[in-house]
């Protein structure tokens, strides 16, 4: 009953309680977003790396996938050595290059082109058509949509801008399929074709930019990475965990920003709740003194005041959760316009335990914020409180 009375006191000043709830909701939303941001991109990157089943990347020594133009010379042979490592299920070579679509006498802007092994690749999923055979390409979905390219269309591709200078070095390829390219940024035009075709066209025979390696069932990725590193020491073998760690390092700023803003949100929440509860308690000082005088235990009064803080915080969370998710979508849209960020990634990952952590933190802050005025109320000298109230 005493707890119910305490909660009803919140309703007595509706305007002020509504304002406090709005403030707590905004702070809780910010805290939620910062909690989601703190691990979102890394987590989302990890998910993306593993989505095709190729959890390991083998790259030229010391570099990250597509971090430079460096390639692995004699890549075909390296691929065979990797495939022989126990625990390797499949090896998918990739060679990155740039081609231009030729229309008439002019070449278009460079397109990111990937040489792949059609039976073993991890860069796209076919949404239409079939894997590319000799003289065939798969185009990305935005390229198909924006340029009106369909399965069966033919394209003139050139390695450089020489066409515009009158060089007849363009070759005709047929579009065998349209793919959903997993690592492309929004509206990116990309191509994939058999790796041998790219090697020949670019004069890089046998070269590979990187390999994706799929581990056999039940094989630990990190263990396999160590075995490949031992078997092929001239390359770098990176497990998903290592790539995520590197991503984490590069995104340190965002994590720290998230921590700072999250802390500020927590302080604001604590200030709001403690202010509102303190004032509420001060207004009811006489009531509280009366309760103590008639024999209500201090602990019960403290419980009532703390519950007030907890309920305020919990109600703020209920309002803050949808607000936070809405804000996360808006902020994600801003951050995904970073150059080179795959469109499938997200900076704000929904992880139930993290959301629960953020909301739990707000509610705990509510409880703590209620403790301060609650303790002050039950510790004040009783006769003095009664006297002040009577004056």
């Amino acid at each position, binding site marked *: 009953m005493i707890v119910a009375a305490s909660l009803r006191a919140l309703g007595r000043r509706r305007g002020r309680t509504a304002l406090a709830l709005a403030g707590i909701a905004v702070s809780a939303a910010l805290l939620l977003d910062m909690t989601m941001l703190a691990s979102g991109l890394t987590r989302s990157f990890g998910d993306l790396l593993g989505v095709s089943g190729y959890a390991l990347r083998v790259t030229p020594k010391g570099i990250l996938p597509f971090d430079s133009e460096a390639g692995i010379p004699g890549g075909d042979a390296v691929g065979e050595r990797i495939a022989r490592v126990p625990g390797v299920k499949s090896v998918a070579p990739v060679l990155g290059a740039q081609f231009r679509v030729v229309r008439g006498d002019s070449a278009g802007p460079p397109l990111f082109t990937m040489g792949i092994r059609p039976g073993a690749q991890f860069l796209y999923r076919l949404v239409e058509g079939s894997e590319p055979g000799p003289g065939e390409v798969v185009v990305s979905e935005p390229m198909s949509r924006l340029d009106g390219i369909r399965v069966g269309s033919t394209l003139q591709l050139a390695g450089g801008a020489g066409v515009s200078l009158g060089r007849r070095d363009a070759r005709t390829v047929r579009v065998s399929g349209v793919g959903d390219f997993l690592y492309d940024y929004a509206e990116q035009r990309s191509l994939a074709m058999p790796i041998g075709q790219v090697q020949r066209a670019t004069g890089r025979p046998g070269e590979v930019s990187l390999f994706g390696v799929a581990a056999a069932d039940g094989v630990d990725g990190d263990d396999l990475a160590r075995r490949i590193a031992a078997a092929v020491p001239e390359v770098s073998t990176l497990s998903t965990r290592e790539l995520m760690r590197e991503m984490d390092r590069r995104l340190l700023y965002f994590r720290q920003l998230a921590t700072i803003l999250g802390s*500020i949100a927590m302080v604001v929440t604590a200030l709001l709740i403690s202010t509102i509860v303190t004032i509420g308690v001060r207004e009811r000082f006489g009531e509280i003194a009366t309760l103590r005088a008639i024999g209500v235990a201090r602990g019960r009064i403290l419980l009532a005041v703390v519950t007030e803080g907890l309920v305020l915080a919990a109600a703020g969370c209920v309002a803050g959760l949808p607000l936070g998710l809405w804000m996360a979508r808006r902020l994600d849209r801003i951050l995904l316009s970073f150059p080179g960020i795959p469109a499938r990634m997200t900076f704000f990952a929904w992880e139930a335990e993290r959301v629960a952590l953020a909301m739990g933190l707000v509610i705990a802050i509510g409880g703590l914020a209620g403790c301060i005025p609650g303790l002050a109320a039950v510790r004040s000298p009783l006769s003095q409180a009664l006297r002040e109230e009577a004056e």
Partner: protein
Amino acid sequence: MLLSLALAAVLAGDPVPGLLVERRLAEAVPLGVGDTVRVRALASGRQPRPFVVAGVFERAADPNRIARNDFEVRFHLSDLEGLLPTHDRVDRFAVVLAPGARGDSAARWIETTALGTRAYSSTGLAERTSATFAVVSRFHDAIGIVTILASAIFLLCVMVIRVDERRRDMGVLRLIGVSRGTVFRAIVLEAIGIAVVGSAAGAVLGMIVARIVNAYYAHLYDTTLRFALVTPRIVILAALLGLALGALAGAFAAWRVVQVAPQKLGER
């Protein structure tokens, strides 16, 4: 371009070409002027070649590379070509224009003349390379709006509470004949006062926090870049915003209290 670099001793013979190493690398190895290093390009498969450290330079603070754990060395172009499998190739040219020439039109002329090239004026290039930071800036703006919203609600809440606390006093003032307008103005003035004091304290706190943030990142990334900047414009903007929010919060709280009949203000 990725290079591997190792300290080496060189026998007398052909003159050894020089290179420059950036300060962070010189400190990390450590390297000093006159040291000899052996360098090879990672992807070339070629044998390493000796170079002598001719100098140490401070790399320009580049926000794009801040989080990348790489070091920079500089060669004569011909020496670098000697390390690489490809020859007669450059990544980019820097072009100095004649006085009076316009960067943008010169860039368009170069693109039409040297087919397959892309040319940028320095302004255009700055815009392109700062795309990342434009995004960060937009993100900060969005967070700023949320923060302002939270602060506004907080200020409003504090003002409403302060006024609520003194409803009886306000009632007495009204009962002894003080007009609604006077009570209203007094509350708004008080709110503005709180906002001014809060803004001033916030500006000082902001400057202190900016110093701490900059010191932290300078240490973390070994950079001269400044991550947080409290400029007079920002201080003025924050103060004006604080004043406006304070006045609004005061007006709202005052409006609530002057709507109530004076004899009712004493009720709990």
